[in-house]
């Protein structure tokens, strides 16, 4: 298997794509692209970081109430979801490697697998939310919030933070699926493979970033129980 180096070309590959006119060469353009993506991911990390900071501070002030409220979350579904997301991370990387090896078929298949796993994650998340809605634990839009344990307001604060965090993460998943759809269309076209390889690398970075965010949400909300 080729180590995924971008430059090994099969027979009928057209000459490499010229760099955009304001760059001197391809390396500079690729370095700028990767640095730009990583700096964008830095801002996304801080977007979730602000939310995480709010959660950590509330969690410290109301340790017992929050630990108690976390009991009411469905750990099994979340664990399955986490496994799904890790697997989609793997399939995304395999798609990148296939594109690196200029193999159109596998790239398409791995991208489809990633999109399917991502959709499955969102479906499971929807099921989980519906479960909470049924248990009347969804204090959104004035819906009734009935909490069996003590200190219902603190539990409501916990569920508010939970819905904001998982909602924001789900929104980023949707954006990720959008990016995957665009990449699928481009890969099917297969017009400039070396350019596609770079674009897939950057799309892969975004998808892996969503995994990292989910790891922290999963740990903070689901695992820190009483």
């Amino acid at each position, binding site marked *: 298997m080729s180590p995924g180096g971008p430059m090994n070309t099969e027979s009928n590959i057209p000459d490499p794509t010229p760099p955009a*006119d*304001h*760059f*001197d060469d391809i390396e*500079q353009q690729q*370095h*700028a692209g990767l*640095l*730009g993506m990583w*700096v*964008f991911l*830095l*801002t*996304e*990390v*801080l*977007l*979730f*970081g*602000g*939310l995480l*900071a*709010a959660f950590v*501070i*509330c969690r410290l*002030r*109301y340790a017992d*109430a929050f630990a108690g409220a976390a009991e009411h979350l469905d750990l099994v579904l979340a664990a399955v979801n986490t496994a799904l997301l890790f697997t989609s991370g793997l399939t995304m990387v395999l798609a990148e490697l296939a594109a690196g090896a200029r193999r159109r078929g596998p790239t398409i298949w791995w991208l489809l697998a990633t999109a399917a796993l991502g959709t499955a994650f969102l479906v499971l998340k929807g099921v989980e939310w519906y479960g909470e809605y049924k248990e009347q634990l969804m*204090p*959104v*839009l*004035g819906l009734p919030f009935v909490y069996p344990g003590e*200190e219902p*307001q*603190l539990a*409501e*604060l916990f569920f*508010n*933070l939970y*819905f*904001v965090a998982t909602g*924001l993460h789900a929104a980023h998943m949707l954006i990720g699926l959008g990016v995957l759809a665009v990449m699928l269309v481009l890969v099917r076209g297969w017009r400039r493979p070396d350019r596609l390889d770079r674009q897939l690398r950057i799309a892969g970075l975004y998808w892996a970033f969503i995994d990292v965010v989910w790891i922290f949400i999963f740990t903070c909300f689901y695992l820190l129980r009483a």
Partner: protein
Amino acid sequence: MTSVAESPTVAGEACTDDYLSGGWSIRSWLLTVDHKRIAWLYAVSITVFFFFGSAAALLIRLELITPAGDLFSAEEYNRLFSLHGIVMVWFFLIPSIPATLGNFLIPLMVGARDMAFPKLNLLSWYIYSLGGLFTLAAVIAGGVDTGWTFYTPYSTLFSNSAVLAAAVGIFIVGFSSILTGLNFVVTVHTMRAPGLTWMRLPLFVWANYATALIMILATPVLATLLLLVGLERGLGIGIFDPALGGDPLLFQHLFWFYSHPAVYIMILPAMGVISEIISCFSRNPVFGYTGMVISIMAITLFGFVVWGHHMFVSGQSMYAGILFSFFSFLVAVPSAIKTLNWTATLFRGRISFTAPMIYALSFLELFTVGGLTGIFLAALALDVHVHDSYFVTAHFHYIMVGGAVTAYMGGLHFWWPKLTGRMFSRAWASTAAVALLIGLNLTFYPQFLLGYAGMPRRYHSYPDDFAILHVLSSLGAGVLAIGYLLPLIYLSWSLRRGEPAPPNPWDARGLEWQTMSPPPVHNFKETPVVTGGPYEYRE
């Protein structure tokens, strides 16, 4: 000396391929990816917002001439100062220097043909305009009466004004400054001309690079916060609601974690402009270049650990207050170093008092007064007395209006020949600069006295005893208004009637002066090779 391969064309020869004569159609402006044209798009839109904000400021000063709140009702007055705050902070001050002068000059100064991501640059302007539309919609829908700080639980539970629309508007415009910051960082990292090492970068580039870092590291937290406020108001998801155990101080921590670095976003580019102007018009290299670079980066990093000085009396614990006060004293040291270095740059120079130099020297005075009063506010015992009083208002106006806007004006005049290829009328420009200096001191110095005397902020009516100082301040506001109207007139006049500018009218050093004015679409015939430092004025 910076050697440049191509020889600058002779002044006055209207060479066809400069970026302005490429076409004036709507498409050529609204779909351009040329960083120079995008800089003009920003310049026009922030000028429009500047006049919205200034109009609100004038109305506030008119209202405050009389102790009784008789010109406007309390509701209208609260909406006016909120509009003034929001428009000035997010729609004028934050983009003013980075998005206009920065966008135009950074590629020129680093010897590149354009920004790293030109399409992203245009996208930033469209996001800025979209955010502006939402905020305008909020104003039309009755405006916001929470102040630009949106403190909860007032903004989420008790205010019945268009807070949601304004929050969405600012949420969107926040992303415009994030993407601009991203563009600057990548451009400075990957697109410097050969030979242009980090320590040969002009201080204007350093300042905007540091500003870009703060935009990237601070603005996302504002986005999260506005999202939480919007969700709490829109969907009833209470995060800061005291009844649910939410903590209003948590809002203040997250808000000021963004908003104090935001004031460094506003002042750092101004410092970059001032270094360029003072060095050019005293014909001296900047005193202690390394010290200046270290100060810029120290301000950037320290700016993130001082936000608690906004909360000394808000119920924050005493120990946290002491910690934040200590850091706030330390963050003032780099600014003091920069002021010393600017003053020392004048030593053994050949000083000429052109309009940009007058702006620079008034910046020196105003920024030093603003900075020193910052020390008053960092001192815990004094802040307890003057917090939320006119002392604070005077402090940050001295730094924002006296610092950032004066430097913006100075930079606009200094690089006007490069931006437009025209010279402005020196006499008018000097008068406007002096009018600005007088107006500023007359408007905001009385407010220091008001503050210590006990006049609280955001008051629609006030005890009669403070009337005389308010009248003085309102008088100053009038002079300030004239100081700002003059440049609009003679600068737009110079667009048509100004004499054509040579490539380097001030004989300044720096890559941007090595090409035509206005520069060609791709900035340089060939990428220049840099061999010397940025400020070699003494040879």
